């Protein structure tokens, strides 16, 4: 029997997502954002979700749409004030969605830490700022640092460029961003990918996310381009 992580449709790949799950969503702005998986999650209907992402969604597509459907109770992100954000500000200003702000580098490192079996690490980022309040301090070589804890998730939703059936992934340019560390930090990583190659076509020197960090794949050959979709007034569902 051969390992084959490719699923046939959105229903299958999303079958075990549950109410109250914590989900990491890859992407920095729209680059690397798994819009079709997020739309699948709207159809799936899971609610009371905690979303870990860099941003909080644009317009009414992808993460913006999911939040608009009120499936999200909390967002953990570095930047929830996107130029084209609609749904998050709406709910936030009404007090109907929670927000935890994390510096971008600390967010990335907390996610990597979870994937690397490191429950906590020290960083100078945020020392002396409001985001250090309540965090343990420790001095190394005369300089003050704060303790940051690993940030893990039940699922990662990730967008990649190429994959093989083992789940080895490559990304396109800056669409790489948070995707590789999120694959590491989630119990189950769900990946939408533009093209699927034979394992022998993947150069082992060029794999960015090794298949060990990926559980399920689905091919989305022509993903939505968020900027264009928003400009055209596309909404989901």
């Amino acid at each position: 029997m051969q390992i084959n992580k490719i699923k046939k449709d959105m229903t299958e790949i999303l079958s075990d997502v549950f109410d109250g799950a914590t989900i990491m969503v890859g992407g920095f702005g729209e680059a690397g954002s798994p819009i079709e998986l997020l739309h699948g999650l709207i159809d799936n209907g899971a609610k009371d979700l905690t979303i870990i992402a860099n941003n909080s969604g644009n317009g009414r597509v992808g993460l913006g749409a999911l939040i608009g459907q009120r499936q999200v109770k909390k967002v953990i992100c570095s930047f929830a004030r996107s130029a084209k954000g609609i749904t998050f500000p709406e709910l936030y200003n009404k007090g109907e969605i929670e927000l935890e702000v994390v510096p971008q580098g600390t967010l990335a490192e907390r996610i990597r830490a979870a994937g690397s079996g490191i429950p906590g690490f020290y960083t100078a980022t945020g020392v002396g700022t409001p985001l250090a309040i309540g965090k343990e301090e420790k001095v190394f070589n005369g300089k003050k640092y704060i303790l940051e804890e690993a940030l893990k998730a039940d699922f990662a939703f990730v967008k990649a460029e190429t994959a093989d059936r083992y789940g080895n992934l490559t990304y396109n340019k800056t669409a790489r961003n948070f995707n590789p560390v999120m694959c590491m930090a989630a119990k189950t990583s769900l990946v939408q990918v533009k093209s699927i190659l034979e394992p022998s076509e993947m150069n082992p020197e060029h794999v960015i996310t090794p298949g060990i960090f990926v559980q399920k794949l689905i091919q989305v050959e022509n993903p939505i381009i968020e900027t264009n979709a928003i400009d055209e007034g596309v909404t989901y569902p």
Partner: protein
Amino acid sequence: MINLNTNDLIKGWDRNTIASKIADDLPHSSYVNLGIGMPELVSQYIKEDREIIYHSENGLLGMGPSPNENEIDLDLINAGKKPVTILPGGSFCHHADSFSMIRGGHIDYCVLGAMEISIKGDLANWSTGKGIPAVGGAMDLVAGAKNVFVMTQHLTKEGKPKLVQKCTLPLTGAGVVSRIYSDYAVLDITEDGFKVVQLNENITVEYLKSVTDGNIIH
């Protein structure tokens, strides 16, 4: 000293002149992160005698200028989410690796805007204390870069000093700023106060003191 009538203000350097002063202070072979907005101008004033490598915290080292309309790739963007290009010798990496470059002290200079800078080098530039809080990579940059340059107007739009004894806004970092480039002067953060490195030709030290809420050393 505070709350000057903005009509009375002396006109200082324009933003292009400030950018060129910063550009002149970035040595050959530096790795530099330019903040979104005004600091992006700096790259236009780098002299021919040096090569600077630009880092964008979303996983791009060796960032080039904006693309032509027909070269736009929405998978190739900068930290401000605008389309950019990559130069030969550039590379892509994931977010944790990109912030290793920042946090690990590998970025020689970052240039950022400011709302307030204290006499101790504290910087406030991420939050007015109102609206949806959003920090992005600012805290990581000021804590990690070897040198933090601030590019700013000397006064707020309301005519209040941005260089202050103590910041009133939420901090981005404490004691992190190395040098301030304003329209009135270039100033270093020192133990004794804001130290004038260069003064705008239309400005007197007296005037600078009158628009700064903190000790000026000349």
